[in-house]
Structure formats: structure tokens, C-alpha cells
């Protein structure tokens, strides 16, 4: 798993740079528009990938077979034996379609995951606004029996610590409450035992790239929170997260951006399907 985590870190370096470049318009466009554009481009691109990574002839045969059995349901509807047989064949066809989708899914799962991680930086949370409160949580490595390190947060002009640290010993977590003061991308500095660590803090309006969590040495977290360099396996700190507020929007709000992306990309893929002669 260590190798996988390291691999994802390297890939993240590439995708962060690509994301910074390609998703930069998100900052200036309305959320619905940027998400629609990304969905359209992604839908068509993945459609093409699907075309060349799947067995189109076999999918075509299965689809034709399914359609034939669906039509048989209508043509011979008075025959229960034909109806049941046709139903069985349709189910079989649907399962075969799933099997035929495995290879393209395997190919697409990595780029799609990386893209969604990059999109999540923009849409999943909104930045803190000046005067707004939030909670910073730091999770420490080690077991609860281990000695508790000295943990301090350095003062900074961008945000004021209004409460904390509050330690939850059973979880080895430390919490601070902060109040945002200055717009921009900032860094909160922490002193943990002998180690100095930092976490990005984003304050502002509109769309900004927000990294809600600086992950630890866990490949799934590294994949999902790609922006900040993860803490190493030997670090005292496991992760630091900031509780950013939810963004409220059907097209680009928290969680909904994903639903919108999924539906819009599907629609664009379906629109372009006949033009690109892809059977799915």
C-alpha cells in the first residue's frame, strides 16, 4: 500500500498541475456553466475511451439480442413460455453488458477518480468568508496509550483562534475554533512536538480551490484530497482538516455537483453516441 500511496502522490503532482491549468476557468465562470462544460467534455472523452476499450461488436450483439427479446415480449405476449424465456434472456443480456463494461470501467476508473478529486477541490466546499467561524481538527498518529505531544497553533493575521485547543484523548484529536479575517490562500502553521506542519486555509468569495483535508499516509485519502502533500507514515500528525461550509447549489453545490456532473455527462455522452457510433 505504501507504494500505491507514493504512486498516487506522484500522479497527484501531475494532475494538480493539469487541474490548476484546465480548471482555472471555474474560478471565473458561474458554477452551473463550468460544471456543464466539464461534464460535456468529459462525457464525450470517456465515450471515445469506452469505444476503443470495449468490444463494440460483442456489445452490439448483446444489445441486438436484448432488443430482440424485448420485442418478443410484445410480439408473443400471449405465450407465457415465450414471455418467461424472453425475460430470462433479457436479464442474461443485461449481465453480459455489465461484464462487457468491466474492461472500459477498469481503464476509466483511474482518470475519472483523478478528475473528480480535482473537481471536488472546487465544488465540494466553499471558502470561509471574512468573519465566519470554522473548526480545525488535527488527528495524531499513534495509540491512546502513547504520550501526548505538545501541540500549538501559531497566530496569524488571516485568522484568529477563538477557542482551543480542545483535546479528545480517546481519539487522539485536537480541535481549534477559528474566525476568518483576510481573503486569500493562507497557511496555518502548527508546532507538534519537534515537528512543524502547515495546513492551507482559504478565505474568500465565489469559487476557490479548497482543500478541506491534508491527508495522512492512506492511499484513498491521498486520492480524494490531492492538493496538499500528505503527512508521511512516520509523522506525528495523521491528518488536518478544516470544516469548510457547504456550498448551496443544485448544479455546483456540495455533493450535488457530483450528481449534476454524472447526469450531465451521461446526457452529453448519449447525445454524442450516435455521432461517434459508439454502442454502450
Amino acid at each position, binding site marked *: 500500500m505504501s507504494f500505491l500511496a507514493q504512486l498516487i502522490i506522484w500522479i497527484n503532482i501531475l494532475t494538480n498541475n493539469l487541474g490548476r491549468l484546465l480548471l482555472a476557468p471555474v474560478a471565473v465562470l458561474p458554477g452551473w456553466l463550468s460544471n456543464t462544460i466539464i461534464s460535456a467534455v468529459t462525457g464525450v472523452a470517456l465515450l471515445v475511451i469506452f469505444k476503443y476499450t470495449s468490444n463494440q461488436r460483442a456489445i452490439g450483439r448483446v444489445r441486438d439480442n436484448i432488443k430482440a427479446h424485448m*420485442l418478443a415480449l410484445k410480439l408473443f405476449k400471449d405465450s407465457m413460455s415465450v414471455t418467461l424465456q424472453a425475460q430470462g434472456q433479457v436479464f442474461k443480456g443485461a449481465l453480459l453488458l455489465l461484464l462487457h463494461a468491466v474492461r472500459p470501467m477498469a481503464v476509466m*476508473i483511474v482518470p475519472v477518480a483523478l478528475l473528480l478529486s480535482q473537481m471536488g477541490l472546487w465544488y465540494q466546499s466553499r471558502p470561509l468568508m471574512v468573519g465566519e467561524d470554522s473548526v480545525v481538527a488535527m488527528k495524531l498518529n499513534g495509540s491512546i496509550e502513547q504520550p501526548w505531544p505538545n501541540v500549538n497553533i501559531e497566530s496569524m493575521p488571516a485568522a484568529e483562534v477563538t477557542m482551543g485547543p480542545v483535546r479528545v484523548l480517546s481519539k487522539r484529536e485536537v480541535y481549534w475554533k477559528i474566525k476568518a479575517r483576510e481573503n486569500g490562500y493562507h497557511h496555518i502553521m502548527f508546532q507538534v512536538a519537534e515537528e512543524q506542519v502547515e495546513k492551507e486555509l482559504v478565505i474568500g468569495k465565489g469559487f476557490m480551490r479548497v482543500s478541506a483535508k491534508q491527508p495522512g499516509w492512506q492511499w484513498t485519502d491521498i486520492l480524494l484530497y490531492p492538493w496538499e502533500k500528505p503527512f508521511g507514515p512516520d509523522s506525528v500528525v495523521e491528518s488536518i482538516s478544516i470544516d469548510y461550509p457547504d456550498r448551496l447549489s443544485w448544479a455546483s453545490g456540495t455533493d450535488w455537483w457530483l450528481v449534476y456532473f454524472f447526469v450531465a455527462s451521461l446526457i452529453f455522452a448519449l447525445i454524442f453516441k450516435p455521432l461517434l457510433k459508439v454502442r454502450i
Partner: protein
Amino acid sequence: MSASQRSQNLKLVILIAVLILGIPRQAQAYIGPGAGFAVVGSFLVMFTAILSGVLALFTWPVRYIIGAIRGRRAFARSRVKKFVILGLDGMDPSLTEKFMAEGKLPNLAGLREKGCFKRLATTVPSMSPVAWSSFQTGCNPGKHNIFDFLTRDKQSYQPRLSSVDIRGPRRTISLGKYRLPLGKADIRLLRKGKPFWKTLGEHGIFSSVIRVPITFPPEKFRGVQLSGMCVPDLRGTQGMFSFYTTRAEEKVEHTGGENYYVTREGNTIRAELIGSENPLRKDNNVLRCPFVVTIKGDSSADLKINGVSCGLKKDEYTEWIKVDFKAAPGIKVHGICKFLLLSTSPEFELYVTPINIDPEKPAMPISYPAIYSTYLAKRQGPFATLGLAEDSWALNEKVLVDGGFIQQCINMDREREQMFFDALDKVRHGLCVCVFDGTDRLQHTFWRDIDEGHPAHRGQASDEQRNIIEELYQRMDVLVGKMLAKCKGKDTIVMIISDHGFSTFRYGVDLNRWLEENGYLKVKGGPREQKYLAAVDWSQTRAFAIGLSGIFLNLKGRESQGIVEPGAEAVQLRKEIAEKLAGLRDPERGQGVIKQVYNALEIYRGPYKGESPDLLVGYNKGYRASWETAVGQVTEKVLHDNTKAWSGDHCIDHSLVPGVLFCNRPIVTEHPRLMDIGPTVLDMFGVEVPKYIDGKALAVADTDSSRSRKE
């Protein structure tokens, strides 16, 4: 795939599954469109299937009750659950007997032993459209209005198809260079009467009717139907092949096909498929579909058409290739055709079958319900839809060689077999009818091999020593064997029938020339061999011939330029011509040409007998209406040697070419007729035979007894 490859693939699948399951909290990470639409597509299919399943289950009791009520009416008195009729167009009883005696048709011989084998009387004239119309209606031609492939237009004397009338939509809207139709094209079936499967349907009995001739356009009834003979190609003709060649000769005119001269640039040849006239354009420009052939060697090439590439191999047909013709922005007409590379050097030669209507997206109704052809296409892939699908014209015109034509017939029989066997599986109770045409086409074109006296006989020096017709009968016997294996139930009756038999066609008789010589027809000055009766002087013509079956009087009040008074003059003229023509002899061979001439008014009964040719000519064996007569030409002699591949025929006296009747049960009736089959089916299903039907139910033995119920 080797075992190690399979094992590797399995490991890959497991790894992917583990990866997916390993990150369940991050579900959003793998729900992308790429994976998503595949998954969603699959689930949509399942959802639709479940929905339709639930609907089927919930409505099943209602449908069962309705079906039971309907079914009881018929099945309560029914003596069978299933009736299967396999039509083998043109199967000849004499040849069948010969091959059975030689032990070459074991399945048919077995059927003869177990059930019966009889000669089946055909219609006057003994032609497929007439005979199959009598089969389906149970009536004589005077009641179903089909007397030939062709009839004449009473106004223009031009030949036209006797079974169907296709006209464009009545009203259109003009929009720039386009003409948008309001409504559908008007396609009318000219066959009158009611098919017996429609009567069965009225009594709740389901039928599957596949490729029975003269069923275009398809009619509504309780069952499924795929139309047969007379379905046009995409150009609206009865089959127009295309032949592309670099051979720069004089302009060649083919019957039933077109020659296209193409030029070769390096290894590339560019050409176009020609479709129908564009119904949406005011200028009626023909639709075109360009294609490119790139020659790769002596025996192969690449074909690019409609953005699709496929390989061409010399003397091998491609699969059916879908071709789209753009009629207007966003509107396409869909067709299918096969390509056959005949030669790449020194000259390029490419044959393309007539462009068939695409059964998946038919441009015209070719099945009932309309989705039935789509169902078949989805189930078994594209298939020939053209009425006369086997391209005998291309063979006649020497574009196709024998092997190419035989392969085409075999391929089409395979397609037919698939749909027939599917119908046998699907229809547990009811009627299944399927007609195979290959038997007719191959006997038409290869009779020259078994008739040593034929002008087109190839002799022993022929490089093809196969007995094509014997092989054909053996193939049909295998088909019968497979069918019988699927019809083992005691409650199933199986019949194998043919609409007529076969005989040799050595000499063509130019009836128009004979009429001219005998003073009944006058030819105008100028070129006399013009087609479609264009050379005839109607002001002095009392009788003329067109089509294959008979002679029309130029009757006043019926024909637009008629000169023969109806009544006594017409009666006398019919009698006079019939008597004279019956005495026509072949001086070279010293034999009579005509067996009998029939007066339509005497042999037909029914409301349409006036539409028939006035006289129907029953030729002796070896003779038939000449090729020229069929298309209304007048030549300079009465008898012509027939040197075409089309060397066997059945358009002779009906008594000389009866069909066959095999049944898996004994039939007592001494002289069964084709028009008796429909009434027999009705009778076996317990349905009263309507009084207007001319046929009589045959006396078929019951299941466990060899005694006939009607004995």
C-alpha cells in the same frame, strides 16, 4: 483463449472488483460517465425487463381469460395444437419421386411412409403469385384477382405489377427544393379475398406467416407475418443489381440490373450505389451512396462505405452491409446489400446485389406488426427482404457465375431457416407457415443441367459436374429432417407443399408475333422490337399478349383504344383464337406447342374474373411464353431457342406441373388441390370453412389412427 489467459483475465477482474470494493466510502470516485453509462445502461435494461415482466404477470390473468375465451371457441373443437406448413416453391413431384427412389431423400421418404405423398393440383395458370394467392385465400383466381406477375394498364397498355400498387402520399408541402409528404405512401395490395390465417385469428388462433408470396403490403391479423414475393427493393423495382467494371466496352444494357463503368486511379476505384428517386426533392434526383474500393492484390480489396470499412475477397460475398442514402438533412433511407468482388485484374469487376429494404429500419412496411422485421433483424442479423431475393437476372445476364448464384440461394435459405425455426419455437399453439424460394430459383436456372436436349445444356465438358438440382433437393430434405425434429408432438400436423412442379423451358413462344401472323395484331412502322407494346398499332389490333400467362382482347370500353365489341364479337374472337392457337405446331421438331387454351370466363368464378387475360395459354412441356412476349415486344418469328440460364419453368399447362403434398398423417382425398390446404387448416382447428371459399378440407387422419375422420 488459453487456460493461462483465462486465468489472467479472471485475476484482472477480481483485482478490479477488489479495488472497487476497497474504496466504498469514496463512491463518487468511480461513478463517472464512462463507467456510469455502461452501468446505467445495463440497469435500465434490467429495469425495463422487470417492468415489462411485472406488467406481463399482472395482466396475464386478464389476457389468459380473454385468450381462453377466444381459444375455447377454436381449440375446443380443434383436432390439433399446431399446424406447420413448409412451402418449397416449385418442388417437382416427379423429381422428388426419382430422388426418393434413389434413397437420396430419407426424411421425405419417411414422411411418405408414415403419412402421405401426393401430387397437389395447382392453379391456372401455374405461376407462383397465382398459386400462392389461391393457397392463402382458398379461392380460384376469379376471387383473388391475381392472374400473372404482370397485368396491363387499361389506359396505357403498359405492364404493371399485378399484386401491388405503390403511390406517393396524396398531399405534400413545398419547402424550397424539398417536397415534404403529408402522410404515408399509398401501398395497396391488389390481391383480394381473405387469407385463411385471418379467419383463424378471428377465432383466437395465432399464426406465424413467413415469406408467403403476395403478402405485400402485410395485412393486419392475429399473428406475425413477413412479406414475400413482390416486396420491392429500395429503388422500387423487383430487383436491380449493379455491376461495376473498368472494362470499357459498348454500352451494355442488362435486364434486371445496371452496368456502371468506373475508372481505376492507382489502386483506388470510386463509385456510387444508386438508390431510389429522392421522394423529398422536387427534382426527383436519385439518391446516391458513394463508396471507395482499394485493391490490395489479385484477390482482395478494401471497401469503404458509409464510414465503415470491410474486406472484399474474390468470389466471396460480404455480409449484408448497411447503406444509408441521405434524402434530406437528418433524413436517411436505409438499405442493405452484399458486395461480390469478381475480378481485380486485368479489369476490375464488382457485383452488388439489389439494395434490399433494411429489415431493421424498413422504408416500407414489410412485416406485420411492423416491429416483426426489426425483431428478426435484431435476432439473426440483416436478411434479404426483396421479394425475388435470389438474383437470377444477374446469372441470366452472365454477371454472376453459377457458383456465385448458388451461394446466394444457399445463404438466403439459411436466413429463412433461422426465422422459420424461431417461429416453430415461439408458436406452441397455432399455425406456422414458411415458404422457401430457393427451390424455384435454382430449378429455373439449372434445369439445363438435367435436360440434355436443352439449347443451353452445358454438356459433359462442363467444368461444373455437380448436380445442382439433386443437391438442392437433398438440402431441402435435410431441412425437412430438422423441422420434423422440432415438430414431434402428436398434436402437430406437418405439411410440405409446393405451388407447382417444374419442366424444361427450351423454346420461347412469341405470342404477339403469332397474333400478328394470324391477323389479330398490327405493328406500326418503325422499329418493331420496342418494349411494352410500343410498336403496336392499337387501331388495328384485336388481341395482344403481355406477361407470361395469356392473351388480352383489345376490348372496347375496357381498353382505352379498344376495337373489339363486347358480346358476340368478343365471344367469337376468344373461341377463334383459342382454336387456332391450340393447333400451333413446332415445325422443326414436329410437335404441338400448346396443350390447351383456356377461356377465362369459363374457368374462373368470382367478381374479378373480368380482370384476367381473356385467354390463358397452357403450353406443352418445353415451351413457354418467350422473354419478348413477357415484356410486350414483337419479334420476327414465333419460336425462339431459349439459351439463357433460366432454363426450367412451370408457366405451362397446369396439368403438367402439379406440386407436391407431403403430410405426417395419411390423407385420403384422391386429388388434393393447393386451394384445399387453407380449408384443411381451418377444419383441423375446428373453424368452420367460410362458404365463399372454393377449396374443400382434405380428409386427414386423426392422430392415433390411420383412418380419416372424413372417410
